[in-house]
């Protein structure tokens, strides 16, 4: 509402700029007057018709400690609500709410229940509100919430490295072998990169929507995700295009960044599944993720096959693309609220889309046949190879 340049030409009666600002008053005054009148006279009283208020409660985080469960809940009803009682596995238990009292719309509180939960077993917690409505939180398999101990961090870092950094490194090690590919081979590799990025885009977006669905309604999950994706896309475009169109090492860094954002999400998911006891993350699954991610290294290597970057560039690329998996597992195994993860994965999806665009443009620029290279048999086979490889290896880690 601040673009004065959009304000119509100031009428002659106004005195310079000050007068221009004065003209912003009437619309606000009108709005304030009408809203004030509506509240004062309660025009809509007859619309309630005795219906109870709509209530909603979102459970954003849960923490299990020895002999205690705690939940971060967020109220999201049409009016303030109160949590009157709490059931655990169909029994009423004493609990402590912090802060106490009624929860205003959008307000959060911690509900802490002393409860002898059973390791590895499922518990259902039911929050009963003052109107008797119930909201459920399910602990799929109870395990203590990880705390940041040295041993915990070490094993999580190892998993993150195996899932993120190792496969990218392995993929980048194909660099010398790939250097001698001809023009067709190059086209194939770049199209393969586009294919795997397309898979990652869909995957990231889907995860973002899933998390958005778990977030409180007032965060408007889907809109949040798509807006974040648009912002991610535009910001990365703006940054990337400051010095012309990216190619070579710059493009490789873009691909690494997009993949890194996705791997952060992957880490988040693994860490979260780990922490909620949902997944016994066996060696097989970790290895499955690693194999699944090997193509990412090949994709990153594609734009720099014709340049000879120093070794530290490769190290940086591997860390940018794979490192976020470590970070994601750390954060995912600790508490996070779904709306933040959804926002982040939305940005990630937008960034990946931007990288897809850049790689495609690079492919067009570096070919003799212009845009038609995108639908050449080599491109299509590369694209589908990337997608199919990701799809097939993902099947191994599907739960």
């Amino acid at each position, binding site marked *: 509402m601040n673009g004065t340049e959009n304000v119509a030409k100031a009428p002659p009666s106004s005195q310079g700029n000050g007068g221009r600002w004065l003209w912003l008053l009437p619309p606000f005054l009108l709005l304030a007057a009408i809203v004030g009148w509506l509240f004062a006279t309660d025009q809509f009283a007859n619309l309630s018709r005795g219906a109870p208020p709509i209530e909603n*409660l979102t*459970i*954003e*985080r849960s*923490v*299990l400690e020895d002999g205690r469960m*705690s939940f*971060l809940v967020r109220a999201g009803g049409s009016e303030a609500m109160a949590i*009157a*009682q709490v*059931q655990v596995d*169909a*029994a*009423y*238990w*004493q*609990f*402590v709410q*912090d*802060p*106490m009292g009624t929860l205003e719309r959008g307000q*959060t509180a911690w509900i*802490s229940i002393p409860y002898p939960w059973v390791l590895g077993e*499922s518990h*259902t917690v*039911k929050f*009963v509100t*003052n*109107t*008797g*409505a*119930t*909201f*459920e939180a*399910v602990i799929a398999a109870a395990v203590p*919430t990880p*705390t*940041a101990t040295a041993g915990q961090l070490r094993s999580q870092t190892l998993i993150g490295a195996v899932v993120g950094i190792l496969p990218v490194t392995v993929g980048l090690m194909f660099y010398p072998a790939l250097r001698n590919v001809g023009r067709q081979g190059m086209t194939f590799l770049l199209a393969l990169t586009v294919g795997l990025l397309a898979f990652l885009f869909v*995957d*990231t977006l*889907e*995860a973002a929507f*899933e998390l958005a669905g*778990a977030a409180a309604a007032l965060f408007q999950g889907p809109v949040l995700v798509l807006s974040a994706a648009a912002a991610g896309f535009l910001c990365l475009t703006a940054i990337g295009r400051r010095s012309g169109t990216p190619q070579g090492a710059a493009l490789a860094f873009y691909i690494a960044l997009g993949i890194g954002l996705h791997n952060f999400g*992957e880490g988040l*998911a*693994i860490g*979260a599944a780990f*922490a909620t006891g*949902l*997944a016994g993350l066996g060696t097989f699954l970790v290895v499955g993720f690693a194999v*699944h991610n090997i193509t990412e290294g090949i994709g990153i290597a594609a734009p720099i096959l014709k340049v000879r970057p120093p070794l530290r560039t490769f190290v940086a690329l591997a860390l940018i693309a794979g490192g976020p998996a470590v970070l994601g597992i750390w*954060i995912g195994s*600790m*508490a*996070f*609220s*779904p709306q*933040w993860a959804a926002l982040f994965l939305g940005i990630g999806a937008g960034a990946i889309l931007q990288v897809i665009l850049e790689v495609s443009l690079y492919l067009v620029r570096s070919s003799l046949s212009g845009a038609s290279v995108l639908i050449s048999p080599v491109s299509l086979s590369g694209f589908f190879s990337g997608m199919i490889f990701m799809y097939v290896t993902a099947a191994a880690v*599907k739960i």
Partner: protein
Amino acid sequence: MLRSWFRFDPGRRRFFSLVAAAVGGAAWAAGNASGQTSHGDHAQQETPPTNAASAIMGDHQIAHGGMITVGEVDNARNGFDPDALLTDWDGGIVEILPDGMTLRTFEVEVEDKEIEIAPGVFFPAWTYNGRVPGPSLRAKEGERLRIIFRNFGSHQHSMHFHGIHAARMDGVPGAGMVEPGGEFVYEFDAKPFGCHLYHCHAFPLTRHMHKGMYGAFIIDPDPALHPEHEEVARSRLLGTPENAKWQEMMMVMNGFDTNFDGENEFYAANTIAHCYAKKPIRVSRNMPVRIYLINVTEFDPINSFHLHANFFDYFDQGTTLTPTLKTVDLIMQCQAQRGILEFHFRDHEPGLYMFHAHQSELAELGWMGMFDVVEDVT
């Protein structure tokens, strides 16, 4: 591929589907600058929590170990107190008719009323005389009964008595069904003696029952009519010296489905979840106990009553003067089944003796209480 890893919902039936978010460490949360409630206080709560507004202390806290509703119900606002309900017999107004027969007249009014059924939980009830369960109507075998029934509720209602009466007095559609604002007078003789009930018989019956439209209807035996068990009959007849030697109480086992999903969220004896756990019923060791127990629980096939550390005699539906079950510590009742329990704590040391439904779930959702056995109730 990521999506399945974010799935925390085993897909159970739920009122509103909720997905518990991933769990986190208090240490990390304390430093989490997301503008949410600080986790710091939570991390420091090392003592067993008690709601500041309702710290329940003393021996009976140990008995439930934290597995109990939090807080207290405002009985004054409800307009009835579960403690008082135990012995609040409604004898109506008695007059002698010209033919020598005793006429007992009761007045019952229906009122829509929001009641607090557990601390902080409000239920939009339909009530007889503003209370759930409704008034405990008590008469003597053979008396003429007249129940003046007025419906100030928002739906049609009736009183259907479990007893013997004419079809016209049955409280079903076409026989004493009363529209909002209307009135009907039920008239019949009190028989058979026993522990009975009345409830609304408007349709849908389920909704009318579970909204709170039920109450005790107790007919004491006339000792003159039962010479073979005159002593027993006299002990049952309210107002006699023999009856005064008994500690009598009325319990209606009921439940409330607060989210209207066909399953009760709260169970109780006399409406208020856990009321007799938080305030145990004081009984004297030196006097026998008689409970008029009535089950009106909706949505569950049966309810039950189990007494700890003791056994009782049971009179199914109260229509006999000798026990129908001897020396049991558990009885089951389906909806509208009821009976009389007789026991004593003569040989027990004073202390807290639990009683509850022995479907654990019903007990843990509110239907449990305790007798505080003392030398003499003052």
